[in-house]
């Protein structure tokens, strides 16, 4: 038997290899066939000890395909979806947002059971991390550039400049800080980023701002860790490992568009990974794990588009699409045509018959949909190059209901004041927002100087959670719930003092300043859909009297600008001099006291001249009286 199986081995490998290649290669198959074949290979791989395997292989060799169909595989328990949304922005820039979603019906955190060892679509590196560190939810983002809410509206998934990481650990974890420390180091390796610089001095446990987005209503914020690295610079080296997590890599599907030379030649670039447990089905009998990889990019009208309001996939990414990722169960491109209902604003070619409407970020949006799994999408050229050509000028953008900005005021290097301005543009609704500020310890915050004013009146926060900093140990955490009156600016100010650090604690370029992470504003914002009770545009009258619950408000998160704060610096070339000079002063003190303590006053007898002393020595030797 053993000899037989050894004899068949090379052949078997060949068959398997051809199967795998057919999955990854250029030949398009129907997805059903593909998943079946992969499941079959998986079963064969996972049970090599089966006694009748030899027979199976023999039949394999004879008429492989037919027999494989007779061997019924279990339904696949993971699936992959990819999509891209293109939204033309009012400023003439263009916003492209990719989302890749992998769902897997498994449980990494099953106690007692053997850890999951076989991975198919879900990246193994992340799966192992999840099970090793008992992670419930993981959200990581790398962003280059600042999202300009006032020009661009709201992003689909907001992220602060630099790196952001927040993780909910499973409630069985005993040493959360230890797990967090290890996890950041592992992630730092996976994403080639400086996440290893996350330590206790920039990690906080927000009490209210970051609730789990997936299943499980964990509220004990002891299991939550949040950290940002505002100075992190995102580049190709972060994109490559991120692309490797995709089932198709950057070989097929939407990911072929991700060429770093174009992606990083943009005004805004953000890539993120979100992992959370979700319901497996409608009944929610068991959980599944969802991995969402998102990439948002805004191409600038002038630097990328040469000032012409004309965008195409090729112009944006220097690639066109020829196929969907063969492993994807759905692969779609959405183009936001809400402001272009009759085609008077821009031309979209090729046009798509499929139109989809959805309430996105509190607004009813219309999208043209391109399904990449359908052959006719690619047309005769077998490639899809979406082209948007403007015809007229767009009118002003509706102001986003909530936006925020932040700055440091004051001069000199002794103290300063942080101002955070929160704008509520809603014409008649007031709503509460949660403001989270995490400031490093070297800005010594004085919480008694905290003032919140809106419309020149004091606006007392109804909830304040403040955790003062510990020098070189933990940052300040300030969370508060502020009610924003309608159509108003609320200004939050707090004073701080700039600390003088040890000379080794400064960054390599100390006079550049220190980056302070963005504040996070989380709010349930009344939606625009609920706002226009007057408009009957494509809605039946009977639906528009009471605002419906799910449309009446939506969750929104806004990040402010990171701050750059200068601290007083010592002279870095002076350590030896300072040590010498200070020790000299101490020695002067010690010496003068020592002198006075140990010596006594005596009358100063002038010493005899040398000749006399010599003569006295000789006289002493001779035994005669001295001079």
């Amino acid at each position, binding site marked *: 038997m053993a000899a037989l199986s050894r004899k068949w081995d090379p052949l078997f490998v060949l068959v398997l290899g051809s199967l795998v290649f057919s999955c990854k290669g250029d030949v398009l198959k129907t997805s059903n066939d593909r998943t079946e074949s992969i499941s079959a290979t998986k079963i064969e791989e996972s049970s090599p000890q089966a006694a009748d395997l030899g027979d199976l292989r023999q039949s394999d060799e004879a008429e492989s395909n037919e027999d494989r169909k007779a061997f019924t595989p279990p339904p696949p328990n993971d699936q992959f979806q990819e999509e891209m949304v293109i939204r033309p922005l009012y400023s003439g820039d263009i916003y492209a947002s990719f989302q890749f979603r992998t769902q897997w019906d498994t449980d990494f955190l099953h106690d007692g059971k053997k850890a999951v060892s076989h991975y198919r679509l879900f990246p193994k590196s992340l799966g192992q991390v999840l099970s090793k560190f008992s992670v419930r939810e993981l959200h990581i983002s790398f962003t280059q550039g600042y999202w300009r809410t006032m020009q661009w509206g709201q992003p689909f998934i907001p992220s602060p400049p630099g790196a952001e990481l927040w993780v909910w650990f499973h409630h069985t974890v005993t040493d959360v800080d230890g797990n967090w420390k290890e996890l950041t180091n592992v992630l730092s390796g996976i994403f080639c980023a400086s996440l290893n610089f996350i330590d206790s001095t920039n990690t906080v446990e927000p009490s209210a701002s970051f609730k789990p987005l997936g299943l499980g209503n964990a509220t004990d914020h002891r299991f939550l860790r949040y950290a940002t690295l505002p100075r992190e610079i995102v580049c190709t080296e972060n994109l490559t490992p991120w692309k490797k997590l995709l089932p198709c890599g950057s070989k097929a599907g939407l990911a072929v568009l991700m060429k770093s030379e174009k992606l990083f030649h943009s005004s805004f670039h953000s890539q993120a990974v979100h992992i959370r447990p979700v319901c497996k089905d409608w009944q929610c009998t068991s959980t599944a794990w969802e991995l969402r990889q998102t990439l948002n990019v805004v191409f600038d009208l002038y630097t990328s588009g040469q000032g012409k309001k004309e965008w195409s996939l090729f112009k944006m990414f220097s690639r066109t699409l020829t196929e969907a990722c063969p492993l994807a169960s759905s692969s779609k491109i959405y183009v936001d045509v809400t402001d272009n209902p009759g085609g008077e604003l821009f031309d979209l070619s090729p046009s798509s018959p499929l139109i989809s409407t959805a309430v996105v970020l509190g607004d009813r949006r219309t999208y043209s949909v391109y399904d990449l799994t359908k052959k006719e999408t690619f047309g005769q050229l077998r490639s899809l190059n979406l082209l948007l050509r403007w015809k007229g000028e767009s009118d002003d953008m509706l102001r986003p209901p909530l936006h925020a900005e932040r700055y440091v005021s004051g*001069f*000199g*290097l*002794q*103290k300063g004041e942080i101002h955070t301005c929160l704008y509520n543009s809603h014409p008649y609704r007031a709503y509460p927002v949660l403001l989270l500020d995490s400031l490093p*310890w070297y800005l*010594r*915050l*004085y*919480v*008694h100087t905290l003032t919140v004013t809106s419309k020149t009146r004091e606006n007392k926060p109804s909830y*304040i959670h*403040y*955790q*003062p*900093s*510990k*020098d*070189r140990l933990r940052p*300040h955490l300030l969370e508060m719930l502020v009610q924003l009156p309608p159509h108003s600016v609320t200004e939050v100010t707090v004073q701080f*003092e700039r*600390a*003088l*650090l*040890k*000379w*080794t604690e400064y960054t390599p370029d100390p006079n550049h300043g220190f980056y302070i992470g963005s504040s996070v504003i989380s709010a349930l914002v009344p939606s625009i859909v609920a706002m226009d009770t007057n408009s009957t545009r494509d809605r039946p009258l009977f639906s528009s009297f009471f605002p419906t619950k799910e449309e009446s408000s939506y969750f929104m998160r806004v990040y402010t600008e990171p701050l750059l704060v200068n601290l*007083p*610096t*010592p*002279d870095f070339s*002076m*350590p030896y001099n*300072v*040590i010498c*000079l*200070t020790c000299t*002063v*101490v020695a*002067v*003190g*010690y010496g*003068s*006291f020592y*002198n*006075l*303590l140990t*010596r*006594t*006053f*005596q*009358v*100063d*007898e*002038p010493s005899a001249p040398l000749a006399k002393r010599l003569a006295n020595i000789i006289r002493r030797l001779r035994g005669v009286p001295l001079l």
Partner: protein
Amino acid sequence: MAAPLTLVLILSVTIRAVLFRSSLAELISERVEVVSPLNAWKRVVEGLALLDLGVSPYSGDVFHETPLVIYLFHFVVDYAEIVFMIVDGITAVALYLAVQNYNKNVFRKQKYALEADRYPHDCLELMRSPKEMHYIPLKVAMFYLLNPFTILSCVAKSTCGLNNAVMALFILSTLKGSALLSAIFLALATYQSIYPLTLFAPGLLFLLQRLYIPVNPCRSRFWFFTVQYSVMFIGSLLVIVCLSFFLLGSWDFIPSVYGFILSVPDLTPNIGLFWYFFAEMFEHFRFFFICVFQINVFFYTIPLSVKLKEHPVFLIFMQIAIISIFKSYPTVGDIALYMAFLPVWSHLYRFLRNIFLVSCVLLACTALFPVLWHLWIYAGSANSNFYYAITLLFNVGQILLVSDYFYAYLRREHHLSQGLYLRRKDGSEATLVLK
């Protein structure tokens, strides 16, 4: 005598009240020379705000006052200005009474010695006259109340004023001979800022002297009283510390107050020697040098006590001066306390060697502190070395001042035993040297 003292008190209160009402008050309260992380009023207010938010003030690194201070200001935070003025007044009156008492003793001793004919005959011009001594207590009160350093410290509402008051009360109760009160106030002062622990030796020496107990380790009376005083001191310290524990229900204040004083984590510039030294220190030598610098403050106690065991009041002055020079977060308020004693030693003036130079240095440095701070922090045209240099010079000035007074005191004592005009063996006029 009460009338001039009242006048001085009224004058000083007026000056302070005017400054409190002026726009200078805020400026002064931000000055790093006047307030340190240990005693800044802003931090007291922050501590109270944290208590209101339900956060322990010691959970962060902003508040470093002792629990008793926060308890005190919990009630009188609205009347803080009046409290600080009253506290300054108490300090001045306590010093006034203490020095009055001390001068009476000195004069009585001098009289007995003269009657016993113990002084050499040419020392008559070293004798102190009641007329000259009459105004010394008033001068002491004036030196404290009208010293710009004290005024600044009070206007900045630095809690350094409280520590000074406790120390002044310790001196008063010691000089009045009340062992229990002396021990209690010493415990309070130690509780506030550790360093006054070194005043235990002069306090004990003075009380021993007052009870005519010779400092002799072979005598049981000496040991009996020493143990008695120590027990009173340690007992009251324990009571105060436990009281603080019960006020807050946790021991958090121990690392946050005493750990903070001893390990110097906050390098905010001040007039002391620690901040720049430890900002520029190599990491692996940090602990060693922190130990060296802290031991330095306590180091002088034993040799000074041996040398000055007959003169405990001068020992108190020396100890306070050494503390305020070498402590980890000194402010000008600390300096004001020992400077208030300078009129007491006015009879040493003829033996001071470089008082002119030292006064000039101290005045120049005082003027240069704000200038160089402005150049470094606001104008950006200087760097930290400028401010550091001036702190060095200021400390050298203080060291020279204190050692000069020490020298003068020792020299006067020497003259009192050996005669003022010393002759060599050959009869020519001799010069005194330290050998």
